[in-house]
């Protein structure tokens, strides 16, 4: 099987790619996956809602009505909170910034046949190092300080991505295991670093870093809204990744190694180098996500600031079917889901974790298109299913 063959489609140029991504055969399946996930999410929500249980005493009929009401309220809040107003759109873009970057951090190594579960560790490293430059380096103007902090974040993430790449290339240690272990390691190392005297806020005993200086903060784009220049950074980076994966010689090498390492070797390419490159670039992208978060929205490093972001990136990348344009668009979609989910929790009292359930369902359906087809009785389509792993051995 091809390792996540790049979806070349019929369209030429960026517009063509967007059109393919929206209207193409695989896009229909993606849409169905989202719909099915929302549907099952509604069932879970209906079954667990307080109202349903309360109304059950009045008979199944009223329980059904109550359940319908609960689902309606929750999903209305979800929609309202994601695209219902300028403020909601701003929140969607804020969430999408990180999602696009962590999604790309999975998409790039995916091309090389590598599964990066280390997004979380890479986000930690990027946020910590970017943040450190942001609060520890003083006396620089914004034009120097901000880029410096962002480059530092990228470098920190790259380092954390490089290590599992190196281990895989040199010793064959599977990147899935080593990236997960790095995530856990860095989570604890982060807590320790946040208690160090140079990092911790003075006078606090809990692990929390000092505030990033204003000269290193990403500027807000609109008065009174939280959306900042991070989204522009993410889109700029996405354009670079598009070139890197689809136009550059290195990206071609990466894709060849991912699709058929033996043939790539026979063509004179170096799979070990591609492995290291793929993971390092992935780490850089994860680091940028962490940096954008810390020098943007958050302003300081806290324990757990990265929780779940790596797994979010996996959802985004799989939903984007390994293409750059797809990743950006699914980043926006899941950003909306996240922003809406928070509004839903605030307004209808439905736990935000429902969004995680829906996300998981979406990738279930993307990873196993047969499930969706069985559900909607859709016939087989071309280029479906993400086959990415090659077992432990390779």
């Amino acid at each position, binding site marked *: 099987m091809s390792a996540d063959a790049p979806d070349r489609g019929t369209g030429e140029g960026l517009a063509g790619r967007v059109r393919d991504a929206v209207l193409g055969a695989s896009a229909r399946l993606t849409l169905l996956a989202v719909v099915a996930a929302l549907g099952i999410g509604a069932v879970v929500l209906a079954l667990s809602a307080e109202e349903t249980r309360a109304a059950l005493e009045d008979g199944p009929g009223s329980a059904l009505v109550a359940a319908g009401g609960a689902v309606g309220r929750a999903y209305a809040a979800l929609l309202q909170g994601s695209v219902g107003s300028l403020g909601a759109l701003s929140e969607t873009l804020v969430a999408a910034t990180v999602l696009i970057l962590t999604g790309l951090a999975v998409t790039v190594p995916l091309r090389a046949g590598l599964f990066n579960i280390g997004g979380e560790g890479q986000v930690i490293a990027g946020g910590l190092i970017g943040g450190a430059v942001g609060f520890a380096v003083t006396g620089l103007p914004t034009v120097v300080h901000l880029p410096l902090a962002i480059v530092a974040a990228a470098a920190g993430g790259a380092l954390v991505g490089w290590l599992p790449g190196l*281990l895989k290339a040199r010793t*064959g240690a599977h990147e899935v295991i080593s990236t997960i272990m790095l995530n856990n390691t860095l989570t604890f190392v982060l807590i320790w670093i946040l208690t160090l005297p140079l990092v911790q806020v003075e006078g606090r005993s809990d692990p929390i870093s000092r505030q990033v200086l204003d000269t290193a903060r990403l500027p807000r784009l609109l008065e009174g809204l939280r959306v900042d220049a991070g989204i522009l950074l993410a889109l700029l980076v996405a354009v670079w990744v598009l070139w890197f994966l689809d136009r550059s010689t290195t990206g071609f090498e990466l894709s060849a190694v991912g699709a058929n390492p033996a043939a790539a070797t026979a063509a004179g390419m170096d799979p070990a180098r591609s492995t290291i490159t793929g993971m390092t670039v992935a780490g850089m992208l994860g680091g940028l996500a962490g940096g954008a978060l810390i020098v943007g929205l958050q302003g300081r490093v806290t324990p757990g600031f990265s929780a779940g972001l790596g797994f979010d990136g996996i959802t985004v990348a799989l939903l984007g079917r390994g293409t750059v344009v797809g990743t950006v668009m699914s980043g926006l979609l899941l950003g909306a889901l996240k922003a809406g989910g928070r509004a839903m929790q605030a307004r209808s009292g439905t736990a935000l974790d429902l969004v995680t359930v*829906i996300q998981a369902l979406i990738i279930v359906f993307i*990873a196993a298109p047969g499930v969706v087809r069985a559900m909607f009785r859709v016939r087989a389509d071309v280029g479906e299913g993400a086959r990415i*792993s090659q077992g*432990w051995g390779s």
Partner: protein
Amino acid sequence: METTATALRRRRRFAGFGLVLGLVVLGLLRADAGVRTTFVLNDARGARFPLPDLVVPVTGTVRGLALVILALAVVQALRGFGRRDAAMVGVMGGLAVLALLTWAGGGTSISVVSLLRGTLFAAVPIAFGALAGVLCERSGVINIAIEGQFLAGAFTAAVFASVLGSAWWGLAGGILAGALVGLMLAGLTIRFAADQIVSGVVLIVFATGVTSFLTSQLLAGTPAWNAPVRFQAFALPGLSDLPLLGPIVFDQTVLVYLMLLAVAAVQFGLFRTRWGLRLRSVGEHPAAADTVGIGVLGTRYRAVMLGGVLAGIGGSWFTLEAASQFSKEMTGGRGFIALAAMLVGRYSPVGALGAGLLFGFADALATALQRLPVPIPSSLLRATPYVITIVVVAGLVGRLRVPAADGKPYVKA
């Protein structure tokens, strides 16, 4: 076999490791003269056949251990230990840990019994998870989802044990949930031939989401549903009176005994029975199994489900033995450690137990050191099992023989 460049490089690397380790022990673990460490060999609750405490001088012991490590490293560099090279690295590591314990316990006492008892206890989820992995992967299905099975098992065990008022019901619930996640994994990877690693990751996210969602949505409002009746330790009559071994192995909780039984049963089943032969054939060469009339998909389904049962037991440990209630994401990555334990144990049940004990020891050690006046931050101690995993996996997996069809969906011609 003659000495070759790769073997030589490996030997040099091992020797270098030993040298550095020995010097670190010698240089960093310093204590004032006359400080002693007491190793208590008796159970704190009293013993029928008491053993004397072991009291050692810190400086002398640490130096002695360091010298042994250095001596081993020198032998390693000069002529190597042949096939025991890797084992010797383990011995050097073990000696270093002993030195660390001696140094950390300076001026106070360390209970060997509670350390090793804790090791066995902490090994429970790791060993069960690794056993689950062994069963799945020996049949050709990669199971990354152990963490998800733990979460589902822990959650369901907590609810069952709370609502039905018995830890045994809790265990049944945990088993059910683990098997259910196993069924989902089997369905995705076998029926729908989805990518196995992606499926596993998806199920982790799914189990995390569902258990977290239900915890907020259901358990937060009804605390009575999250107050499980838990298993208590019970001593096996007679055996628990053995010195040292008794309190460590034979005065344990239900799941520890179950773990030992399960390891023996799976080891026997895999390598001595027809069932095991067929299961392994399906994981090595499914087409060959198919051509002699063995149902490949059915065998894999059953193996993955049984793996789910074992992982579910491992998950029950969290709420029936380790903690008093379920909390979001309480498994804290132990499912991944179990995965690593499976690899370290080289796909063998006994190996899985061994690796489980290694990680259990790291856990117990971190807990023990936290209680001692040691200038090591606790968060770094808690990171050590993960670092160990990276080091071990990096050192091992390259030379690991993976079941040949592991990770490959079987599609008929």
